[in-house]
């Protein structure tokens, strides 16, 4: 392993400081006894108490997480299969067309996607709510999965697959033993970016939701006019802390295990 010099460490530290600055900023204000993200009055935990007192907000948060995880999972499966299929296409023109089609939802602004999905769902007669939101999130997350998986597919030379086939591996074995392990980093990247898409989305969800189903983004954007309450900051603070704990915890548990078994 090449040594990492101090310059690199400083650079990376800077990147992380910038990435986390706004998050710490908004968590800082979640302890503000005032009622907005401006002039800090005094320290309080009231906003955290409000989070737990407001079961509606907690339900919305949980809904948001379920939609994000499920949609990212399904989008990753469909997107990965799509990327594998695209890579095996021989016709270059067709391939480029499919890839262009793939990117249409990425280039289209959310309002357009939201409005056209709404028209689509009401035409087909899907009840607006959890299902319509889930379907939409799957739909707009698929392209980013394809973009993340495709480079790994391209890297993997066809000779590798051919060799495996020559050695008598079945197509299923090639898929599970050769292709999937190789493109796994791409799959995880796709999954995490799909999560990001889903958690960030406001406009599409707004249009296709209904019957009491709501996500955190819709809730936060609609607060903008009368002022976003610091309860939302507190909630984000909790979400952030829990995510960090889960990731760090999971990471240390698994790396320890691996070390214990293998070394």
């Amino acid at each position, binding site marked *: 392993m090449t040594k990492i010099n101090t310059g690199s460490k400083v650079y990376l530290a800077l990147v992380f400081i910038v990435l986390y600055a706004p998050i710490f900023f908004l968590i800082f204000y979640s302890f503000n006894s*005032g*009622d*907005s*993200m*401006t*002039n800090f009055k005094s320290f309080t935990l009231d906003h955290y108490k409000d989070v737990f007192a*407001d*079961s*509606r907000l*907690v*339900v919305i948060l*949980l*809904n948001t*997480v*379920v939609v994000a*995880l*499920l949609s990212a*999972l399904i989008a990753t*499966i469909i997107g990965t299969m799509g990327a594998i299929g695209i890579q095996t296409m021989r016709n270059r023109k067709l391939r480029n067309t499919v890839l262009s089609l793939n990117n249409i939802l990425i280039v289209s602004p959310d309002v357009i996607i939201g*409005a056209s999905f*709404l*028209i689509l*769902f*009401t035409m087909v007669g899907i*009840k*607006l709510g959890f299902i319509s939101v889930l379907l939409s999130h799957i739909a707009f997350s698929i392209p980013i999965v394809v973009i993340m998986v495709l480079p790994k597919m391209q890297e993997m030379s066809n000779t590798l697959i051919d060799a495996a086939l020559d050695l008598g591996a079945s197509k299923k074995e090639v898929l*599970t*033993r050769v292709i*999937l*392990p190789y493109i*796994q980093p791409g*799959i995880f990247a796709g*999954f995490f970016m799909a999560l990001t898409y889903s958690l960030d989305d406001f406009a599409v969800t*707004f*249009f296709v*939701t*209904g*019957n*009491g189903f*709501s996500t955190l983004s*819709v*809730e*936060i*954007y*609609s*607060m*903008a*006019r*009368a*002022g*976003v*309450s610091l309860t939302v900051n507190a909630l984000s603070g909790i979400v952030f802390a829990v995510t960090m704990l889960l990731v760090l915890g999971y990471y240390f548990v698994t790396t320890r295990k691996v070390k214990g078994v293998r070394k």
Partner: protein
Amino acid sequence: MKNLVKAIIAIAVVCAALMYLVNSLDKTSSQGGTDILTVYNWGEYIDPALLKKFEKETGIQVIYETFDSNEAMITKVDQGGTNYDIAIPSEYTIEQMKQKDLLLPVDHSKIPNLKNIDEDFLDLDFDKKNEYSIPYFWGTVGIVYNPKMLKKDLDFTSWDQLWDPSLKGEVLLVDSAREVMGMSLNSMNLSLNSTDSTELNKATDKLIKLSPNVKAVIGDEVTQLMVNGDAPAALTWSGQAADMMYDNEDLTYSVPNEGSNLWFDNMVIPKTSKNVEGAHKFINFMLDPENAAQNADYVGYSTPNKAALKLLDPEVIHDERYYPSAEVRKNLHVYKDLGKEKIGEYNELFLKFKMSLQ
């Protein structure tokens, strides 16, 4: 491969657990929903305690959904697939909803508390005889400013003071064509409902002369910026101005003498309603003086409920910034729906002005 399968199973298990949790927390779905009322409103625009009180008093379950713009709300109601029983749009939207036949008439006999509303706010042009709508909050458009930050002693009793050279690069405007164009029209003593193209062009030319003074054209984040002292003056709505003044005592608010806009948010019953009876109960409940006062206190906007005024802090109701005098009110005008074509023209001219900022 094993990793992938494990990951899939883990996610599925987590989702199932969370959904179970949601179901046990979410009373509306667990009770099977006998009597349900769906309210569609802006976020943070009602005291949640009132919703609980309403549920207790009537036994009706309230589902509260939120929107962030009138136009997006119309699209949702228009497209169907939803069943909102109460919506709270602004007045110009109500005219559009009436035209599109999206509203049910309000039965006044079921709303005895209607008598509490100030007559000045009833029977207005956008909804004669309040056939479809009942006022919820009201306000004005004006200038919020920070006297301590001004380089020159301005009091904004006239719109023209925004053009003062001492404000170079300091003025914030709301990103809304009607408000900004209306301000320019008003400053020339023209009607903010003008449909005359020469007048509109004149107003645009005057706006373009304002562009050296414009710091930014923004949305709701104007609240945060003014409180933080990022700019000394902003064109905004009285409701937001009230929020700002609450957070920063240096700020004050003025409605210029040439006149300005008077706006309303109103309760309506969309055609998609499945609980018309409950909707009337809700409207009547919100018009109860005590409830209206509690709501006004929570939201911080001006209430049209004259019986509720008696229950509010006298300092607030005698503050002309929140409750302007009859004299000022004379010069205030409600927006008329000018039709899509004219609104398009307003927006195009406004876009031309915004492009001149670059």
